[in-house]
């Protein structure tokens, strides 16, 4: 085994190993959330995952970014075919191991990858322009400064580098192939720009260039992969499970709180003895609603990791459009940041420790929560079926039921419902007055 193969294997193991280490961290962070069993309606889940995640159905509500995104998405998927060859070549010390056996099919596949790489490159530049030159409001909200803004750009720079290495590799290789008298590979683009750029260079330099491209490609793929867990770009993996586990019910249906049902049932049951010992041993007292990420169902935390901060939710939000503090995207970003913070803290200080902070107040303010109209525009807009509204309502539940903190008018509304069965101060006996009024 040559030195190249050894170096290759070491880099590969290091790359995948570190990635695995971080994925484990992500999984343990998601597991901070409450348990929630979802294994129903498998047929429907396959269908929605195929349409929404694989088929990008909801992306196409906005056709221009959807097309650009599709270029990068398809290029990303198909380039992985080439990665298989790179891995085999790297370990065995071969060069384009599939070329002799696959022949025309090989030329076709690499040509498709070249075409897609060019399209992805165009899309990447368009995205950089959209983020930095065009004043698209959703990329310039308050939560999109600092790291989130940089993160969005870094991933695009990495993509440019990746494509640059692919084209260096294929172009130089084409020139080598010709110089060695084997003729052209016949790949879509490199058969033209290869000779044009690299033709006439001496064979040793070409070999070095080809190797730079090849190793560069590999290193970029591994860098990219290892960057993902630190970035909003983890959606490329998580979009699929996230859509699979997403809510299939009517969007208007808010979750039922069973703990409350049990208490209310007891209140309605004349036989119930309020002083009786609970039938089952009660575990840790449960908070009503959500004060921190540990109170959220794990699916909410999966959603937070899946969010790629595109901001379609926020741009559709009526509260945000009218200058209120609420931004559904920020709800998801805060949930993720808080989860990572608490996860890191617990790994460092022990499973049962707590840093004393919480999602509500420390990250998300009451003003944000009370601005929501529960209109579901954010849920509808999300290309990967994230549900910021469920988190907002869960946080409101905590404010109201644990802290008794609601805007004064709402407290009044509550007591009206309680006392006279309507949100306003009318007597229930007047309910039918409309019948006789003209």
């Amino acid at each position, binding site marked *: 085994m040559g030195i190249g193969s050894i170096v290759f294997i070491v880099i590969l193991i290091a790359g995948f190993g570190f990635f695995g280490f971080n994925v484990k961290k992500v999984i343990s962070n998601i597991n901070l959330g409450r348990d929630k069993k979802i294994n129903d309606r498998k047929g429907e889940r396959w269908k929605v995952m195929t349409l929404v995640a694989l088929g990008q159905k909801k992306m196409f*509500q906005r056709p221009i970014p959807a097309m650009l995104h599709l270029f990068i998405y398809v290029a990303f998927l198909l380039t992985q075919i080439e990665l298989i060859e790179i891995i085999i070549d790297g370990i065995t010390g071969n060069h384009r191991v599939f070329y002799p056996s696959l022949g025309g099919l090989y030329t076709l596949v690499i040509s498709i990858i070249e075409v897609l790489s060019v399209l992805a490159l165009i899309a990447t530049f368009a995205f950089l322009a959209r983020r930095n030159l065009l004043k698209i409001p959703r990329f310039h909200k308050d939560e999109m400064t600092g790291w989130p803004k940089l993160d969005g750009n870094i991933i695009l720079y990495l993509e440019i580098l990746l494509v640059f290495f692919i084209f260096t590799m294929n172009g130089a290789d084409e020139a080598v192939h010709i110089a060695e008298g084997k003729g052209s590979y016949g790949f879509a683009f490199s058969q033209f720009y290869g000779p044009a750029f690299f033709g006439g260079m001496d064979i040793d330099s070409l070999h070095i260039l080809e190797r730079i491209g090849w190793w560069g490609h590999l290193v970029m793929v591994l860098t990219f992969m290892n960057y993902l867990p630190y970035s909003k770009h983890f959606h490329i993996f998580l979009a699929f499970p996230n859509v699979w586990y997403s809510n299939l019910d*009517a*969007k*208007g*249906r*808010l979750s*039922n709180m069973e703990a409350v*049902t049990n*208490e*209310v*049932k007891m*209140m*309605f049951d004349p036989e119930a003895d309020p002083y009786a010992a609970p039938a089952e041993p009660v575990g840790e007292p449960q908070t*009503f*609603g959500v004060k921190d990420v540990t109170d959220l169902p794990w699916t909410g935390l999966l959603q937070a990791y899946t969010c790629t901060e595109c901001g379609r939710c926020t741009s559709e939000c*009526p*509260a945000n*459009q*009218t*200058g*209120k*503090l609420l931004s559904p995207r920020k709800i998801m970003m805060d949930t993720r940041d808080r989860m990572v913070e608490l996860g890191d803290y617990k790994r460092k200080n022990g499973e049962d420790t707590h840093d004393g902070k919480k999602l509500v107040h420390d990250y998300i303010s009451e*003003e944000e929560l*009370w*601005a*929501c*109209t*529960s*209109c*579901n*525009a954010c849920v*509808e807009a999300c290309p990967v079926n994230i549900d910021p509204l469920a988190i907002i*309502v869960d*946080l*409101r*539940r905590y*404010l*109201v*039921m644990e802290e008794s903190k*609601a*805007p004064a*008018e*709402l407290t*009044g*509304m*509550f007591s009206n*419902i*309680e006392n006279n*069965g*309507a*949100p*306003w101060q*009318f007597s*229930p006996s*007047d*309910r*039918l*007055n*409309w019948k006789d*009024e003209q």
Partner: protein
Amino acid sequence: MAEYLAKGEAPDILFWVGCAGSFDDRAKKITKAIVKILNKVEMKFAVLGAEESCTGDPAKRAGNEFLFQMQAMQNIQIMNEYKVSRIVTGCPHCFNTLKNEYPELGGNYEVIHHTQLIQELIDSGKLRIEDGKPFKGKKITFHDPCYLGRANDVYEAPRKVLETLDAELVEMKRCKTKGLCCGAGGAQMFKEAEPGNKEVNVERTEDAMEVKPDIIATGCPFCNTMMTDGVKNANKEGSVHVMDIAELIAQAQDL
């Protein structure tokens, strides 16, 4: 409902009037329009009257799950005693809560919104809208209530009903799944808006004004209030009317 029970009969449908429809002066007119339509087709319907109580929707959306469930269980107890099987509501919020949030608490009913019932009546030929009635040549735009549209995917029924009116139906640039909220949902109706630079209903009314309608049609008493206020804010109350679909149909029928 109690009267039907006393007679030993069962109505075809329970009309869930809702708090707005019972107490709000503007919404009461919508209630009456729905009743006129039900009477016209001689449908046997009942109301709960004083036995009806808030569904708990605003409480639930404001985070008060206790209050919501107390309301729900109380209403379910009454409706189950009356053996209610089918409900029509005059309000998308009641519609959503009864349809989606009551089953888990023991209330299983077929729930429809009044625009769906009207469409059903038109489709089955029980309700006929004659041509050339008061809306001929008028421009009508429909504002999708969030709790009918996005929350429950009911987009077609209200439009199909409006199409029978012989009026020109124009869509706002944001409609159906992309329809903008009126600003009332999530218990906002009962509080001041949080600080911002604009009211949501003003923003939504501007959408409507862009298509220069004669009538803004709604299917929700809260949207109705919000859009009416928005039209007043734009000083257009003389030329643009905000009306519920039930009112338009009742008027077309000279009811």
